[in-house]
């Protein structure tokens, strides 16, 4: 708490941390050392490793669901399996998590539902980062009328509540495939990234090394991509990573309401909605997809947390 304490402890920490960070990253320069430090920091966080392993597993499940179950997630057997209770001893078998109201294997559906969630999460984040990041960078770097126009558009989209707007937008589509949901969420979600990017580009633009680069005769693209962008990227990455989990959660919510993904696509949100009908006597039909959904969101949020702590220790 006292100043002297802080400076001493910090000096000590700096002295110890500096050589090891420098060892791993011979190249000097501000961006490198920021990322180097962040990586150094990340490697020492159990949260980072837990979430990474979880996410890796989820990615594999999303890519190759057939590896994890031989059961068919779509064809139900109403006569034999209607709402059968789970058999928790039957690891990785069709009846592991029981059967749902249409006699389909819940385990298979949980496995096959991963793909839609991951696709939506990653897809929206990628689209939002590209569009929002680009617009924010242009607005922040060039300022003037371009900034005014982009900022006003951002204000307009920012005025629409995210989930509510998504409901209205998606309601306009009858055939809601994964890409439709991605586009709808990205359409409403790009503003926060745009604002963050704009603010950090403005800050980075005013830094002394940018003035120095300009004085040395560097052109606009060079300044923008070599000097401004690498230094403005960190907050954007933090916001994007944390938002990813939120997008997955939003997709499930919309699907749950019947406004997101529609039936041939397997989505945890739809399964939760169906499971909720039978919750009183057969909670398993809701609990397993809900658990898997929460676990996925948890993994992404935890990764976002770890990345934020590593990139911006002040926010911890």
């Amino acid at each position, binding site marked *: *708490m*006292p*100043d002297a304490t*802080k400076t001493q402890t910090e000096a000590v920490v700096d002295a110890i941390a500096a050589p090891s960070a420098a060892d791993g990253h011979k190249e000097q320069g501000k961006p490198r050392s920021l990322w180097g430090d962040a990586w150094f920091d990340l490697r020492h966080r159990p949260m980072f490793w837990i979430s990474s392993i979880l996410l890796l597993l989820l990615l594999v499940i999303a890519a190759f669901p057939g590896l994890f179950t031989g059961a068919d997630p779509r064809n139900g057997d109403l006569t034999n399996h209607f709402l059968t209770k789970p058999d928790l001893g039957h690891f990785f078998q069709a009846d592991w998590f029981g059967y749902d109201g249409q006699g389909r294997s819940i385990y298979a559906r949980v496995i096959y539902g991963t793909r839609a969630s991951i696709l939506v999460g990653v897809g929206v984040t990628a689209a939002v980062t590209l569009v929002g990041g680009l617009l924010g960078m242009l607005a922040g770097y060039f300022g003037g009328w371009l900034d005014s126009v982009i900022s*006003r*558009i951002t*204000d*307009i*989209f920012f*005025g*629409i*509540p*995210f*989930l*509510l*707007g998504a*409901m*209205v*937008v998606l*309601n*306009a*589509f*009858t055939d809601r495939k994964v890409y439709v949901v991605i586009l709808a969420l990205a359409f409403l979600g790009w503003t926060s990234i745009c604002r963050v990017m704009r603010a950090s580009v403005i800050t980075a633009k005013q830094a002394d090394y940018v003035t120095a680069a300009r004085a040395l005769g560097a052109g606009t693209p060079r300044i923008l991509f070599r000097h401004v962008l690498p230094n403005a990227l960190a907050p954007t990455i933090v916001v994007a990573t944390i938002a990813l*989990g939120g997008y997955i*959660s939003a997709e*499930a*919510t919309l699907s*749950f*309401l*019947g*406004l997101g993904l529609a039936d041939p696509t397997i989505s945890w949100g739809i399964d*939760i909605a169906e499971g*909720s009908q039978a*919750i*009183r006597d057969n*909670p398993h039909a*809701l609990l397993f997809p*809900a658990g898997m*959904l*929460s*676990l996925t*969101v*948890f993994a992404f*949020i*935890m990764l976002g*947390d770890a990345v934020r702590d590593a990139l911006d220790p*002040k*926010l*911890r």
Partner: protein
Amino acid sequence: MGRYVARRLLQMIPVFIGTTLIIFLMVHILPGDPIRAMWGDKAADPAQVASLRHEFGLDQPLWKQYIDYMGNLFQGDFGKTFGGREVIDEMSESFPVTLRLTAVAMIIEIIVGIGLGAWAGLRAGKAADTGVLIFTLIVISIPVFVLGFLARFVLADQLGWVAPNVQDSTDYAQLFLPGFVLAMLSMAYVARLTRTTFAENLRADYMRTAMAKGLPRRRIIGVHLLRNSLIPVVTFLGTDVGGFIGGAVVTEGIFNVQGVGNLLFKALQQREGSTIVGVVTVFVLVILVINLLVDLLYAVLDPRIRYA
């Protein structure tokens, strides 16, 4: 200050127009035809369809529809539902319900969120702090509708502590559970934000001064730390109203609360344009006004901010 407010109000106009235009277009650009859909699978009488289309102004070009709509809006006319009721009547019945639900949620969010955050922030780095951090992480990870069903399943269906459905929306005791569910996500964010600002401000120089002045611990934390730490939290509470509105649709559906969320959800299912646009327009106005109020409150809380 007066000039600042005037400028902000002026800036709101294009934002308001832009936002409502987007919503309006989204609702009316629908590939399907809501009027024909009223007949379901039965064959519709083309003359009847045409007259209904005319009645709702759906035969006009889109831009004309929008201008007419906005013109009526300024006279307090939100249009009619397909059922023939005034949208404004529907909304004035359901808005107070949602308002009460949101108020309950807000109070829970503020008390529990700030309390938990302060508790963790004062113990930064200790077990209690880690516990709160993990708790908030879990709460953020569980989507509201899952949380809602779980709460309903456990507290109402299994334990029977509360009624699963809200029968009387003026009874705050009944609104507690849906309010709590609605509050959870924001509460977790408030707790995290409070924790961060508390832990950060705890190291501030003025805290050392307060200590050196020989102030009692309660005063150091309750006056010097709290006043500084609440500034970002208040800002967050303001910007979070939009999230509440989205959450209200889900929560009201789960607990059968007859609020705006429910009204909107039904309107979405029936593709009833006037209600959808009406509800969203009011929400957008509410959000814009709250954002302005928060900015003004910010200046009150932090004397370093001066709006010219």
